């Protein structure tokens, strides 16, 4: 009986060491069922097996750091340019040598020295309810939101979230720190409640009148409107309308989800192939139809629900790597002004 149990044990322990011939190992902070199908598509196309772990981006990065040069990770996929910048500034990404990428991707979506690239984009938009008149939002800018007329009307998630940090970072880049030092307290005073929940919770809050406007990422609207997250989220999303800020000047704040190849990757060529795969039009279409993000390459349309929100939107063309550089200053300013 013991022998049986013992060999059972051995079989499983060593079974986990067995490898397929060609593999690519991905650590990703995306947790979508649809991603699994994507990996299968890649496997069918190239014969390279995809191994993946999904988890919180920061946790995965810490694990990569702990694993050191023995880390099996080839590719790290995460959201927000600031997160990508952090990984790269600590020296964990290596150059992606691919001619295809420079041909299809705009320069502003590529990290310094080709160390990471964007694979989809999202806007940080304003949603509002019927308490807000159209004229109040005409030509609205993020900068206008510190004015008194928005007192007790704004809901937004916590400053600990990186999407907000990147928005503030972009505003620092365009307006300067001293401007932002004065702007932030005014903005924070307009909060209708203390920051809580994630972007979805903000949409719900606007739908049920806890606030009049909220600042959220565009794809959440798509997810909620799709009905996949249940009726109450669908109804809430239907109750709000959308406006894109800064359309008369620099454009709405743009951020990305992106990927890079890790320094100690053991399957470099396979990793390059996978990243190029993500930029193919068909794959872009698949990604944006499932996650409601905007495509990062030209010639691909976003999901109809997202298209309905607005087309020909003017985008802030700031190089996204700046969002990473200014992240620390953004966090400091947010801390000092009391945005929890």
């Amino acid at each position, binding site marked *: 009986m013991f022998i049986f*149990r013992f060999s059972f*044990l051995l079989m*499983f*322990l060593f079974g*986990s*060491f067995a490898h397929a011939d060609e593999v690519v*190992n991905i650590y990703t902070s995306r*947790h979508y069922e649809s991603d*699994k199908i994507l990996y299968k598509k890649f496997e069918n196309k190239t014969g390279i097996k995809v*191994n*993946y*772990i*999904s*988890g*919180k981006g*920061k*946790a995965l990065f*810490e*694990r990569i*750091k*702990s*694993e*050191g*040069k*023995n*880390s*099996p990770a080839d590719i790290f996929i995460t959201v927000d340019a600031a997160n990508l910048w*952090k990984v790269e500034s600590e020296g964990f990404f290596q150059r992606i040598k691919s001619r295809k990428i420079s041909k299809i991707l705009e320069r502003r979506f590529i990290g310094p020295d080709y160390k990471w690239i964007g694979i989809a984009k999202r806007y940080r938009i304003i949603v509002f309810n019927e308490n807000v008149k159209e004229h109040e939002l005409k030509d609205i800018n993020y900068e206008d939101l510190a004015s008194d007329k928005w007192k007790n009307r704004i809901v937004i998630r916590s400053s*600990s979230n990186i999407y907000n940090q990147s928005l503030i970072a972009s505003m620092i880049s365009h307006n300067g720190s001293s401007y932002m030092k004065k702007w932030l307290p005014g903005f924070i005073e307009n909060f209708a409640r203390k920051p*809580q*929940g*994630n972007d*979805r*919770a903000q949409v*719900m*809050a606007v*739908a*049920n*009148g*806890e606030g009049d406007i909220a600042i959220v990422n565009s794809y959440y609207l798509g997810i909620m409107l799709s009905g*996949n*997250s*249940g009726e*109450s*989220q669908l109804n*809430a999303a239907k109750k709000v309308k959308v406006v894109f800020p800064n359309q008369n000047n620099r454009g709405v704040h743009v951020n990305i989800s992106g990927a890079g190849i890790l320094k100690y990757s053991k399957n470099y060529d396979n990793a390059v192939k996978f990243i190029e795969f993500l930029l193919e039009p068909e794959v872009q279409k698949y990604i944006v139809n499932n996650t409601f993000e905007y495509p990062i390459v030209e010639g691909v349309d976003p999901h109809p629900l997202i298209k309905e929100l607005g087309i020909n939107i003017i985008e802030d063309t700031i190089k996204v790597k700046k969002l990473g550089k200014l992240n620390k200053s953004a966090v400091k300013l947010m801390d000092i002004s009391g945005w929890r």
Partner: protein
Amino acid sequence: MYDKIKSYILLSPSILMGIIFSIPALVIIFSLFLPYSENWTHLNDTVLNEYISNSWKLLVGVSIGVFIIGVSTAWLTSTCNFFGKNFFIWALVLPFAIPPYIMAYSFTGLFDSYGTANELMRLIFNIDNGEPFFPSVRNISGAILIFSFTLYPYVFLISRTAFLNQSRDIFDISRTLGLSKSKTFLKVALPLARPAIIAGIMLVAMETLSDFGAVEHFAVPTFTSGIFRTWFGMNDIITAKQLAAFLFLLFLIFIIIEKYSRRKLQYNTISTSNRKLVPVQLYGVKQIGAFIICFIPVLIGFFIPFIQLLYWAVAYKLSYFDSSFYDSAFNTIYLSLIAVFICIVTSLIINFLIRVNKNNFLSMINKVISSGYGIPGIVLALGVLEFFSFLDSSFNILLTGTILGLVFAYSVKFYALPNSNIQSGFNKISSSLDDMSHTLGHTKFSLLTKIHLPLLRTSFLTAILVFLIEVIKELPATLILRPFNFNTLSVSAYLYASDERMIEAAAPSIAIVMVSLIPIVLLLKIISRDNNE
């Protein structure tokens, strides 16, 4: 002579196991001697006080909560007869199947401003505006509620056993001396059961403080969530480990209190006779009262969250129960089988050696290994990660990211469970059997295999079941240490819920509950068999 040599041969691997099992804890403690970075000043200025005060409030609130719920229901179901009592004896344990973070997810789903409960109220009373009926639960009071209703079964089970074992003589004497029923309870039964109750509350305390999923979801910053934030938010793994070390030291204190209480318990039960309690039949208002007191915890701690999760899963995500679900469930089960196997073998050898050699040193090693229970999951994961990274770079292999890491973590954390089962199993085997076997000329080895093993069968079964339940529910260590393509039910539930994707979180959550129910029911059968002996 051969026997002695053989037993010494078994001694060294046991000591080795003891050392290996202690390494994660040692790694964490060692960080206390590393330099303290400037982040400590930042922490001190900003959030440290909040962490400490929240953790303290949670601790006190939950301890009171589980005391009230656990002791009252235990007392009623052991000393009284009332309508539904036999149902409640097992139903009151059902919240065991629902880990705190799952309960948190279902409660926010119910009581958020657009949650099910509020929607229901709006439907019934035909209200149109969005004002929530029920108060928000995403705060510390909500957290205290959640933990109390999901963790009280520890106190319930332990107190109930204590009350059942209290001899009838004591109650007869106290009634003769003129104490009313309630005075008997307050002045005799309760103090006698105090060691057991305290032991139960210490277990609850450790579970509460090491939780990270529920408090994160409720936005209640506690010590454990602070460890996460320092590690990931401030990128400072050393300060995170130092925080973890302090938490671990606190837990050691809890363990010492628990063990000290239980020692007193043993002393008490030896000196009393064995006449069993005869339950008192309740009538009228008292019967209704007893029913309500027992019904509320089952309702809040099990039925309400279960039904909410079931509704979500069935209405939206039945497709979840496809092949990847079975993969996740299977992953969880075989991982725990491997880990419990390691623990059972280790515990068997150590306890056997203690029995035949009366070795105090081994006893101590056993206690050290058992204290792994007091290491919060995240602390353990940190320690294992560091230990394995060290091995990886020293020997140029790759251990991190294999299931070895998880198996190791589970073995260290939950060793105490199979160990206490095997220990009590051995205690039930009379030593005269050992003597007889020796007289008849059998070796120690055949004593172990031919006599002890068959008699320990129930202990093994109980050990496997209890271990399985804990592994299914474990979250933090699994989250950090798991290998590629390896999702467990707890991880799936957490990743979806922390993204506010409740509907998608419901299916793995309900799966956790249902998969845990099977071992729980089996376990209850074994316990009731034991209690009737």
